[in-house]
């Protein structure tokens, strides 16, 4: 039974996702031990411009030229800087076909694994595991379940997904792919908010359809919550492979920040520019192949 961690990365003019993915892979390798390989799925341009670094952090690289229609999103770097840039996030639906592993742990390139809890996913009874609950590490968002819209279905976070090769997972990814190519229809059907194609939405809709379009529960990952640091937060210091101090945007006034230290706790750091500012620290604290 092969077990692999897969990360997607495609650079745009705003973020060097390949570097971020390498940092993320380094943290995964340092903190987890029960996987066989860490694999990057990327495009030719991203690989060519970062090949040496990528080969240091990944056991395997898969080049894929997946259809990436225009999907422009607003990137925030705290409240100071806002910038629109293309967001190339459409490849995830193809991961079932592309994954060479019997069991796959798919993680975002900005998800930093800082303990070994995700080692518990391997050999699970469940074909798919994904989290619905999340927590804002700055405590600005009080609720722990987000909905696609106030009158729609619960949102599942595609940030970390476990799946094994199985009928359920295959059908799930077939549906996600179908939703991707017919997004406008499903966007209105599910009363989505925002114009951006979001994998979280596509996964949530596909899970809803696959479970008979009724209220449903999908097995959650061993971690109870996704610990999200939203893009108004910043990084103060990267201490080690399991210790980061963050500037958390204050709930009362987001331009103010409170310091908080995160040890032995996975962090989804959405401020990509902040990761970029500390990329050398992240890379040096992670483990290479």
């Amino acid at each position, binding site marked *: 039974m092969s077990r692999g961690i897969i990360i997607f990365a495609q650079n745009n003019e705003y973020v060097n996702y390949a570097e971020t993915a390498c940092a993320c892979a380094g943290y995964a390798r340092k903190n987890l031990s029960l996987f066989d390989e860490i694999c990057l799925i990327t495009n030719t341009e991203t690989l060519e411009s970062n090949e040496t670094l990528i080969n240091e952090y990944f056991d395997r690289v898969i080049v894929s030229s997946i259809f990436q229609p225009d999907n422009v999103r607003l990137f925030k770097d705290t409240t100071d800087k806002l910038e629109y840039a293309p967001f190339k996030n459409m490849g995830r639906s193809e991961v079932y076909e592309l994954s060479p592993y019997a069991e796959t742990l798919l993680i975002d390139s900005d998800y930093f694994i800082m303990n070994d809890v995700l080692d518990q996913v391997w050999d*699970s*009874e469940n074909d798919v595991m994904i989290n619905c609950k999340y927590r804002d590490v700055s405590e600005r968002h009080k609720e722990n379940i987000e909905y696609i819209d106030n009158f729609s279905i619960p949102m599942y976070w595609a940030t970390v997904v476990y799946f094994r090769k199985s009928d359920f997972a295959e059908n799930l990814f077939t549906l996600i792919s179908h939703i991707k190519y017919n997004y406008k229809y499903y966007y209105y059907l599910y009363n989505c908010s925002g114009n951006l194609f979001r994998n979280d939405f596509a996964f949530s809709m596909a899970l809803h359809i696959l479970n008979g379009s009724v209220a449903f*529960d999908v097995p959650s990952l061993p971690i109870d919550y996704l610990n999200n640091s939203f893009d108004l937060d910043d990084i103060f*210091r990267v201490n080690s492979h399991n210790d980061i101090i963050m500037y958390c945007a204050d709930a009362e006034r987001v331009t103010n920040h*409170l310091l908080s230290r995160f040890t032995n706790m*996975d962090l989804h750091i959405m401020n990509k520019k902040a990761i970029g500012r500390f990329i050398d620290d992240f890379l040096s604290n992670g483990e290479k192949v």
Partner: protein
Amino acid sequence: MVDTTEKIKTESSADDLQRLENALDFSYTMRTFNLNKNNLRIKTQNLLSYSTAGGSFTVNQSLISFMNFVVSSGKTEISLLDKNDIPIHIENTEKFLDEISSLYFEVVNDYYNEYQKLRSSRKIEKVLEI
């Protein structure tokens, strides 16, 4: 008759303003402490997870007590619902109890130590080792 009604201050002295500023500063410090305290609590929740035989369990006092009852009743194997309500067969109840108890003691002990560090210091810089 003595008038005990406190006069409403129309002007603040420099001393009053300083005290107010200190109070507001302290509120900022308290928010930082509370945020760190909550993050410690969430970290503990995340770490109190134990997986075996394909199931995933949240380790808490109830699970430990129940498993203690199972082991004391002489049952060596049982089926148990995991956190996703999937029935999981536990082949060695004693080993399972040992492992979840050890995990619980280790994680909660770490939580205790970090919590003590946090509450015993008034300076966030010291706690965060900045």
